[in-house]
């Protein structure tokens, strides 16, 4: 599967996802500026992304813990904002578009 990620300067990156990996891990390993300070524990909100072009609705809804943690994220956009450590790569997400949120 592919992830289409736009960084903070508006540059688009197409990166190969891996089944079972989180989108955060893929973006971080691809060198995108994802802080992910807590390492994927849904505990810091520094892997915040906007999920674009109708992909938000195709994801399983955020857990209560993620909704809570998003309260600590900056520039949250309801209906777009997710923590990328909580999005797991899967074939049905092939082509998912995300934008790295501002820090």
């Amino acid at each position: 599967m592919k992830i289409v990620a736009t960084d903070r300067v508006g540059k688009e990156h197409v990166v190969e996802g891996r089944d079972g990996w989180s989108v955060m891990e893929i973006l971080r390993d691809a060198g995108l500026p994802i802080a992910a300070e807590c390492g994927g524990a849904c505990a810091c909100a520094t892997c915040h992304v906007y999920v674009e072009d109708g992909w938000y609705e195709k994801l399983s809804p955020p857990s209560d813990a993620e909704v809570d943690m998003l309260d600590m994220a900056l520039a949250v956009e309801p209906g777009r904002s997710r923590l990328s450590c909580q999005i797991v790569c899967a074939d049905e997400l092939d082509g998912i578009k995300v934008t790295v949120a501002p820090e």
Partner: protein
Amino acid sequence: MSTPIETDVAIIGAGPIGLFAVFELGLLDLKCHLVDILDRPGGQCTELYPEKPIYDIPGLPIVTGQDLTNRLLEQIKPFGAQYHFGEMASALEKLPDGKWKLTTDAGTEIVAPVVVIAAGGGSFVPKRPPVPGIEAFENKGDGVGVHYAVRKMESFRDKNILIAGGGDSALDWTINLAPLAKSLTLVHHRDGFRAAQHSVNQMRELEATGKVKFHVASVKSVHGDENGRLMAVTLSGADKKEWMHEIDSFLPFFGLTIKLGPIADFGLNLHENLIPVDTAKFESSTPGIFAIGDINTYAGKLKLILSGFHEAALMAQAAFHICRPNEKLRFQYTTSSSNLQKKLGVNA
């Protein structure tokens, strides 16, 4: 300014690795002072995930971040380390006699032959909302402009205050400042809060009595007058409709994030915000300055707590030779050495 503190080792960072460094240094009779910007020990373990279990600490099948910190504190208690919490290590200077002077933003000065940087990713600092030009309104004095913490509540009396955020700090300060404020408005991106339920209830009561105004909205821009005084913000509501809101002070509460901070200006070699070290001593390219834990980098580095523990042990051996150049280091085991057991305060 007070007289500088003289010690063997100044440690920057009181996270798990800084704490364990006290143990390894302590076994070699080296005394430590620790500086941490947080107001308590534990670093990321207690700031980010105090309740989350950690499963990869050798010998502890499951331990929370808080528990690990508590256990480390117990383990290092015999060594009497001194802590300087709520202080940021802000400058590092080499003295003519070869020792280092570490200065904090609170004016504390620590002089030591060895400095150990165990600062993780750097300093925890408040998250700054990505609102263009917001920096210009920071540090404008008590009660006015942008503040990420409340030091003196009284300075906010009779002010028009805007608070942004939905966690405990946002709600606690909404509740505490509402009785003093001329007006208090809370904005958050949803009509729900991460905060404790009793705080949410209290906020709702204040809203019902008109003491607090709450909007599902976010701050889009900030506006000042010609003297740089904050005057208003533009808010954007759930329906994307924007409006101006006049304020004296804006308090964003989105928790903390990690920035490298002043360590970047210590004159050390840095590689992508990490300090390259050798793997025999975990010393930086500047003699006497060591880096252990998440802040260092070397071939094969893994950012694991257990790696940091190992690094602390090797660092301590090298630090001994700097602090006690004329003494021979005797390598001993805690299991068998009555000398070490005495230091630990246990009966042989």
